[in-house]
């Protein structure tokens, strides 16, 4: 399935945006966390600074987000993971409100209650959570609702190869197969579940092959390539929209940064990330676009400048936003 030039440029620009965002966040996250202004003796203080807590960044995994979301409408649902920024950005979650949420500010999507792993944007049908494997059942639910409402909406559950060994994966695929739900299960195989690689976690080589066990088609995307993902996702989305049920897509992608920021990655072979970066999907797509006459140096520079400004604005918005009042902590347990 070939994307239109407009879709290709959309994917490219969003990959640039995601990469700029994650690299900016990696720097900003460190603010306030390093000596000397932290507890004596500590190398790092996770709870300090403008963005406290854990931070999971998706640099390298952009193709999965843009290749899938390029097919989605506003009414389609995306349920993401603890590493959610690329999905949120590709789904159209407003960057400023997302960033304010990550900073815990009152202009954030949840006025600071959720934070980086719990981004909720019902307007753009986006949500995510910090529990591995938790994305799949709610995506089935969104798909079920679409069916009951008679809509041709689809739902996408993103998860990692580690999550494919969690009970919810097996239950959700069976349920989706049984009830012919318009859901797409997208497995980001970045090889690592924190420190455990796929060979040491999974009894089979291919998660795409597991689809057959649940009566679903499985598609394997062997390259971290936006156009390859686009092609596989296009097939799956089209199947779901016409009532053909669910699909499992497995994408071999690359995690450039640690599981979480601050992760020393002692478990990772030296030089692995350097090797992976040689196949960076962003210059990869740029090359394709240039070959088709869709991109030249000037246009690329303009795009990068635009993306840089967008990210800078979002972070500035977050910094300027006020913190919520402490009494808000007791509000909205119930609606």
């Amino acid at each position, binding site marked *: 399935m070939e994307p239109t030039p407009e879709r290709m440029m959309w994917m490219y620009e969003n990959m640039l945006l995601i990469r700029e965002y994650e690299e900016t966040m990696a720097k900003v996250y460190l603010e306030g966390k390093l000596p000397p202004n*932290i*507890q004596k*003796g*500590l*190398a*790092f*203080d*996770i*709870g*300090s600074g403008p*963005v*406290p*807590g*854990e931070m999971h960044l998706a640099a390298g995994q952009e193709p999965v987000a843009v290749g899938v979301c390029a097919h989605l409408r506003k009414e389609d649902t995306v349920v993401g993971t603890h590493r959610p920024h690329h999905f949120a950005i590709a789904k159209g979650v407003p960057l400023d409100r997302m960033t304010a949420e990550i900073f*815990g*500010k009152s202009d*954030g999507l*949840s*006025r*600071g*209650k*959720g*934070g*980086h*792993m*719990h981004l909720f944007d019902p307007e753009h049908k986006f949500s995510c*959570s*910090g*529990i*591995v*494997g938790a994305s799949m059942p709610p995506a089935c639910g969104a798909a079920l609702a679409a069916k009951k409402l008679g809509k041709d909406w689809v739902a996408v559950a993103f998860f990692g190869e*580690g*999550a494919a*060994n*969690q*009970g*919810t994966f097996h239950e959700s695929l069976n349920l989706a197969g049984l009830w012919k739900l318009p859901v797409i299960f997208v497995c980001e195989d970045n090889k690592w*579940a*924190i*420190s*455990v690689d796929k060979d*040491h*976690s*999974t009894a089979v080589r291919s998660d795409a092959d597991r689809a057959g066990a649940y009566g679903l088609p499985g598609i394997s995307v062997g390259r971290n390539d936006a156009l390859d993902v686009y092609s596989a996702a296009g097939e799956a989305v089209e199947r779901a929209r016409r009532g053909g049920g669910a699909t499992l897509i497995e994408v071999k992608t690359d995690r450039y940064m640690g599981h979480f920021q*601050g992760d020393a990655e*002692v*478990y990772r072979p030296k030089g692995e990330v350097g090797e992976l970066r040689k196949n960076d999907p962003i210059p990869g797509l740029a090359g394709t676009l240039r070959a088709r006459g869709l991109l030249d140096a000037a246009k690329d520079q303009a795009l990068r400048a635009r993306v840089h400004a967008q990210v800078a604005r979002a972070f500035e918005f977050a910094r300027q936003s006020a*913190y*919520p*009042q*402490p*009494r*808000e*902590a*007791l509000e909205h*347990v119930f609606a």
Partner: protein
Amino acid sequence: MTTARKLTMAQAIAEAIGQEMERDPKVFVMGEDIARYGGIFGATGGLIDRFGPERIMDTPISESAFIGTATGAAAEGMRPIVELMFADFFGVCMDQIYNHLAKNTYMSDANVRLPVVLMTAIGGGYGDAAQHSQCLYGLFAHVPGLKVVVPSNAYDAKGLMIQAIRDDNPVMYFFHKGIMGLPWMAYYEGSTTEVPQEAYTIPFGQARVAREGADVTIVALSQMVQKALVAAAELEKEGIRAEVVDLRTLVPLDTDAVLRSVTKTGRLLIADEDYLNFGVTGEIAAQVAERLDRMVLKSPVHRLGVPGVPIPYSRPLEQAVIPQVQDIADACRAMIGANLAKAA
């Protein structure tokens, strides 16, 4: 002659596990990222190099399977230690814990023994939000059949872990991330203590008076003990002498230690980081309420806990719902000023 040196709580736990593994070949460990990584919070640091992957086993993200596996292996005479990375993740495997690990001993009239230690990280205060900051020991203490151990410092952590490993019953062992002494998270330094080199045990159901005082009793556990001690030092300057009782274990619970202290001081503050409602603070208060004929309270019981909300992410919100040192000190001051009998 044994030498004592200071260990962080994480080091103490890993040392306890290592010593028991040397002593007893049936002890082994399963969990996520416990081998090369040494556990996300350091509880198995250094063990893979000493015992190898046959006994320090990284698992897939399949908690129901591997925690149930611990139950099954224990029934066969093995002594597994299994790590649930964050207590918050219990949801994905709760059936194996509360319906099987907890109940098989009883349902078999103790013909089946399950010497499992299920250890897990708890606690917030560093911005990890609703699904990564909970304590939840109250929930596990509520369900019959699980011993519940909650150390507040390195010395206790080692003794309680060795006790847990040697116990033939399922023991849930909760270590608070903010007292593990990790190099990447601010922690209360009182939790790093001298720890004897040799193996030793601390019996379950034996609370510790962490600080003596005559004016008010603060019952606490886990990191809250450290907060209470800081508050008590502050109160001392105002002439308020607070006694801090560190519960150490919830199941079994050392009710007598609580009663002794409250009989002495006449004022009870229970400070907990778990949810306020239907939990630890209510249990302690009820235990005292049932024995009001034996003591005189000078002020109503006071409870501190997370007030019925998920842990919010934003720092000012999180600090507002998790009891802080100031909240403990202010509560004690209020209790000193209060009277049970209202003035006319």
